C-alpha cells in the first residue's frame, strides 16, 4: 500500500518503525497532488517548500528519538495535513476563497495551527472553500469549484469541500475544516470520510477568519474515526487568545474508542426522517441504527420538536453575524482596494467587486435583519427560537447519550444543480445546522453508498463536551462495518479523456 493510502495512525506506526521517512511520505503526497489536483481542485495553495522543510525537521526528530528514546517526540511528527483556506498559517496566503483576500498573507497564525506545528505536523497546503465558508457545495469559491472524487461531475459538499475531497482522494493524511452550519460534517458525508464538529468553544477560533462567531468551530476531517480523535486531541483546549474557548481540560480522546456499545443509549429523532429525503439515505441510516443496536446500544425514539424551525433560524442568525464580521473588508489595512473618487466610493467598489454573489446575498440579508425596524421581528425572533432548539437537545440528552440521524438529506448533487436557487442550496444543511445553533458536538461517518456509488453519511450528535461519546459510537460503528475501507476509483483509466498531471483546471 502506498503511503498516501495510510491513515494518520498507520503513518505514525510506519514512521515509528523507521520503514519510511517523513520526507518520503510528504513527497508521495506532493506527487499525488501534482497528478490529481488539476482535476479535483481541492487545493488553492500547495506549499511544497514549507512541507518538505517541516518533514526534514520531523525526520531529524525521529533520528534523535531512535538514538535516544527518552528524547521528547511530538505526537504528529511528520504527518502531512491540509488546512482549509479560512484558517491562518503564518506566511502562507489565506484567500478564504475570495477575490477580496486573493493576495492576503497572514502575519500571524491560528492557535489550532500553532498546536499542530508544535505537534510536528507537516502542512501540504490550503484547501478550497466556499467564499468565507458560505455555501454547501464549494461552488461559491471565487477560484472555481472542487470536484467530488467519487464522481467528478458532482460537488464535494461544502464549505470545507476542498479538505473533504483532499482526504477522500488521499491528497493528505488528514485535514482541518470549519463548521458553522455543517461545513465539516456535510462534505465529509458527501465525500465518504469522517468529519467532526467539536462543541462550540472546544477548539480556539483565534486565527480562523470569522463568519458566524457564535457558531463557528474548527474540526478535523479524516480517513477514520481514530484519526479524528488524534487530530482533535491536539487542536482542542482553552486559549487565552479566544475568550469563547471552553476552559475545560481535554480528555484523552483515544481512550473513548471502544468497539462495543453496551450501556449506551442512542436517540433517534423522527423529525430527521422527512418526506423528500433520498430513500437510499434513509435506508442506509436505518440499517446503521440496527447495527448500533446489535453492538449493544439501547435505541430510543426521542423527539426534537423545533427541528423544522432550525433552517430559517440559522439563515437569519448566521448572515446577521456575517454582515457584522465582514464589515472589516474595507480595502484599508489589507486585501483588495478599488479606488473610487471618495473614501465612500472606495468602500462600495471594493466590497461590491471583491465579494461574490452568495457573500453579498448574506451581507444584504444580515444587514436587513439587523436594521432599524426589523431587528425584533427577524434577528431577536431567531435568537429566541434558537433557545427552543437548544432546549430540545438539552431535554433529549437527559434521556440518551447521543442522537443519530442522517448527515445530509441527499448524496452529492451535480455541479450547477442548485447554484441558481439559494433556498434549495440551503436545504443541504437541514440536518447539520441544529448542532451549531445548540453549540453541541457532532460527527459524520460513512454508512453506505447509493445506487450511483455515492457515499452516505451517518451523523452522531452528542451533548456539549460530549466528544468522547460521539467518538465511541462512531468508532464502534465504523469497526463493525466495511465502509471506511472504500476509496474512490481515481485513476486515468476510470476517467478517460481527462489527462492526469496536465495542470488543467476544470470549471
Amino acid at each position, binding site marked *: 500500500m502506498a503511503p498516501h493510502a495510510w491513515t494518520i495512525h498507520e503513518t505514525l506506526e510506519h514512521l515509528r518503525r523507521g520503514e519510511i521517512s517523513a520526507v518520503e511520505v510528504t513527497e508521495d503526497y506532493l506527487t499525488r497532488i501534482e497528478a490529481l489536483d488539476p482535476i479535483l481542485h481541492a487545493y488553492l495553495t500547495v506549499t511544497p517548500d514549507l512541507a518538505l522543510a517541516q518533514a526534514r525537521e520531523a525526520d531529524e526528530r525521529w533520528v534523535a528519538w531512535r538514538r535516544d528514546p527518552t528524547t521528547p517526540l511530538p505526537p504528529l511528527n511528520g504527518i502531512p495535513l491540509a488546512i482549509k483556506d479560512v484558517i491562518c498559517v503564518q506566511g502562507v496566503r489565506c484567500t478564504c476563497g475570495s477575490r477580496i483576500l486573493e*493576495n*492576503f*498573507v497572514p*502575519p*500571524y497564525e491560528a492557535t489550532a495551527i500553532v498546536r499542530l506545528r508544535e505537534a510536528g505536523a507537516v502542512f501540504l497546503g490550503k484547501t478550497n472553500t466556499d467564499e468565507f465558508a458560505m455555501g454547501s457545495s464549494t461552488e461559491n469559491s471565487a477560484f472555481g469549484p472542487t470536484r467530488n472524487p467519487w464522481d467528478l461531475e458532482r460537488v464535494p459538499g461544502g464549505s470545507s469541500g476542498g479538505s473533504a475531497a483532499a482526504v477522500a482522494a488521499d491528497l493528505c493524511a488528514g485535514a482541518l475544516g470549519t463548521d458553522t452550519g455543517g461545513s465539516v460534517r456535510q462534505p465529509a458525508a458527501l465525500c465518504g470520510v469522517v468529519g467532526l464538529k467539536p462543541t*462550540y*468553544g472546544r477548539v480556539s477560533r483565534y486565527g480562523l477568519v470569522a463568519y458566524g462567531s*457564535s457558531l463557528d468551530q474548527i474540526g478535523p476531517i479524516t480517513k477514520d474515526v481514530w484519526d479524528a480523535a488524534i487530530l482533535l486531541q491536539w487542536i482542542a483546549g482553552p486559549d*487565552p487568545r479566544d*475568550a*469563547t474557548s471552553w476552559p475545560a481540560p481535554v480528555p484523552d480522546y483515544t481512550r473513548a474508542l471502544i468497539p462495543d456499545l453496551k450501556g449506551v443509549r442512542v436517540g433517534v429523532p423522527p423529525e430527521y426522517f422527512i418526506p423528500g429525503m433520498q430513500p437510499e439515505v434513509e435506508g442506509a441510516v436505518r440499517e446503521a441504527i440496527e447495527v448500533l443496536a446489535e453492538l449493544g446500544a439501547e435505541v430510543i425514539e426521542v423527539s426534537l420538536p*423545533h427541528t*423544522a*424551525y432550525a433552517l*430559517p433560524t440559522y*439563515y*437569519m442568525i448566521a448572515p446577521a453575524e456575517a*454582515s457584522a464580521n465582514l464589515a472589516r473588508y*474595507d*480595502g*484599508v*489595512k*489589507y*486585501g*483588495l482596494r478599488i*479606488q473610487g473618487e*471618495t*473614501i*465612500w*466610493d*472606495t468602500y*462600495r*467598489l471594493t*466590497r*461590491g*467587486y471583491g465579494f461574490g*454573489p452568495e457573500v*453579498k*446575498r448574506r*451581507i*444584504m*440579508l444580515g*444587514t*436587513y435583519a439587523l*436594521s432599524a425596524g426589523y431587528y*425584533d*421581528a427577524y434577528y431577536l*425572533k*431567531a*435568537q*429566541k*427560537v*434558537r*433557545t*427552543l432548539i*437548544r432546549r430540545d437537545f438539552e431535554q433529549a440528552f437527559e434521556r440518551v447519550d447521543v442522537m443519530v440521524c442522517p448527515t445530509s438529506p441527499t448524496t452529492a448533487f451535480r455541479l450547477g444543480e442548485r447554484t441558481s436557487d439559494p*433556498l434549495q442550496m440551503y436545504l443541504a444543511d437541514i440536518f447539520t445546522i441544529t448542532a451549531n*445553533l*445548540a*453549540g453541541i458536538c457532532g460527527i459524520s461517518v460513512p454508512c453506505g453508498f447509493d445506487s450511483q456509488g455515492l457515499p452516505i453519511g451517518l451523523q452522531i450528535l452528542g451533548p456539549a463536551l460530549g466528544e468522547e461519546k460521539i467518538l465511541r459510537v462512531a468508532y464502534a460503528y465504523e469497526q463493525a462495518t466495511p465502509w471506511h475501507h472504500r476509496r474512490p476509483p481515481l485513476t486515468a483509466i476510470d476517467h478517460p479523456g481527462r489527462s492526469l498531471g496536465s495542470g488543467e483546471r476544470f470549471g
Partner: protein
Amino acid sequence: MPEEVAMALSREEVEHIAELAKLALTDEEKSLYAEQLSAILGYFRKLQEVDTSDIPPTATVLPIRNVFRPDEPGEPMPREWLLQNAPAQADGCFQVQPVLEE
C-alpha cells in the same frame, strides 16, 4: 412585532440595504437580490408560528463569564508585518483617502 414581516423587497429597499452595507451593486444584481431576498424572507415567515413570548434569546451557547488576564506588556507585532498587506502605505502608516470634508 410588525405584522408586515417578510414582505417582498422593493428595488429601493435593496438599494437602501446595499448602501448600509457599503456594497456597489449592478442593476442586474439589484433585481436579482430583490427577488431572491424576498423569497428567503418569505421563508422566515415560518418563525412567526412559534410562540416565543416567555423565551429569552440565545446570543451565545456558552455560560456568560468574564475572562481576565494579567495586564502585562507583550511583544508587539513588527510594524512591517502589519503593513505588508496594505493596499497603500506611507511613512509607516496605512494610506487612505480623506474621510472628512474640508
